[in-house]
């Protein structure tokens, strides 16, 4: 039951994040929306992991480990996006043409 | 004996929740940033302290109780630092 609830939350978050990513024009908000979207995808995956509980584990450890990896990779992508954004902002400032 | 311990845990955690609710009410109802922060930090510290107190007799391993207390102390220290920072930021705006 818990797995289904949070799986559906993950599906909704994916839609919310995707909408923000496409419909909001502010670059920083797009980065945030991308992370909301990522959280939703991870939650869908986590719900599947929870359904695969067995052999004495609270969830299937393989998708759980992959989600962990995914969170770190999403963070790396976010830092790169922020660095790009700040560089563009500083170039706009020094060259306002 | 265990009934007494359970009653103690229940009472302490419920009291903690009351303080959390009060702090949240303060956050939502108070007029300016400083009094909101005041309500939030004061009430939440006491609330968290009471919840930790209620959970102490239920700590499983030997290291459980010190870890619970460490969590409370770390929250105290971090919000003691975050509160003034937020207040300073709010005053500057």
């Amino acid at each position: 039951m818990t797995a289904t609830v949070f799986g559906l939350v993950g599906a909704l978050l994916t839609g919310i994040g995707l909408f923000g990513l496409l419909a909001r024009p502010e670059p920083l908000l797009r980065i945030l929306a991308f992370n909301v979207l990522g959280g939703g995808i991870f939650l869908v995956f986590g719900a599947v992991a929870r359904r695969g509980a067995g052999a004495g584990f609270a969830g299937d450890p393989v998708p759980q480990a992959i989600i962990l990896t995914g969170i770190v990779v999403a963070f790396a992508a976010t830092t790169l996006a922020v660095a790009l954004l700040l560089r563009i902002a500083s170039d706009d400032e020094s060259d306002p043409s | 004996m265990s009934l007494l311990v359970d009653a103690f845990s229940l009472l302490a955690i419920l009291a903690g929740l009351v303080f959390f609710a009060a702090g949240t009410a303060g956050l939502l109802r108070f007029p300016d940033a400083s009094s909101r922060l005041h309500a939030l930090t004061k009430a939440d510290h006491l609330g968290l302290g009471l919840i930790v107190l209620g959970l102490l007799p239920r700590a499983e391993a030997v290291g459980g109780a010190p870890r619970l207390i460490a969590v409370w102390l770390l929250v105290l220290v971090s919000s003691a630092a975050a509160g003034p920072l937020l207040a300073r930021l709010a005053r500057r705006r």
Partner: protein
Amino acid sequence: MMADGLIAAAILGVALATIASRGTFTAVALFIAYGLLLSFAWVRLGAIDIALTEAAIGAGLSGALLLGAASRVAGRGAAMDRRPGRAMTVAIALGCAGVTAALAAAILLLPDPAPSLAPQVAANIGATGLGNPVAAVLMSFRGLDTLLESAVLVLAVIAAWSLAPDDAWGGKPGPMQPVLADGPLALLARLLPPLGILVAVHVLWIGKDAPGGKFQAAAILAAMWMLPWMAGRVVPPPISARWLRVAVAAGPALFIAIGLAGWMTQGAFLAYPPGLALPLIMVVEIALTASIAIALALLVIGPPGRRA
């Protein structure tokens, strides 16, 4: 059940508020709350390892990074696309609703019993000597994923640094921080690191048998470096420093070396010799923790910028 409903409603509310918020600063604050609420969901889903990672990296480090970015782009007209028109917005909303519906259908139509690799993990975990199944997957069964992920962090550092302006190349990373002699942040920067480092070592070490491990420990270590940096008490080394570059790459390099050694002796890349699996895994874990911690901190601090 009620707890699930409350957490689910809170997550959805905060996510909607993030996407709909007017100011970037508010959006970031809501996003941090989103990360913390997500870690509640992970606890409810029985994934404590992920809950720790989400709180430390998804809410903590991302929060610090994005708050810094929000304050630095505030008031500047950063390049912005045009807002989509009404018809376009409706089309986007319909498309997103379709994606949500497809994912929801996938969740609701999951076969029963759901596919699971848990029995295979349980059958083979003994060979690794680890007690934490997630750590066993990360370091042994899917070791290649973890290796590639640590390589991604090294690449991300290189990519972020390459965004430095030409005249700042090789300089000190990140914006200049004012030196705080006293005040709450300076106090925290002095008080917390010894405790934080202790907690990080603890989280790393118990990670072999209980939830925890290198990513969570590395995130805590990175925070313990960034705290004195924010208070102006520690200046990060210039990115041309050789030891810094070696330190970022050392963990993945050691992982590759041990993987190649497994290829020579056991006939498969990243295979551990029987009996030596646990010591080798712990050596790699410790080396990766150090490299990942430095990489995470450097990613949050950012590339060198122009000095005013």
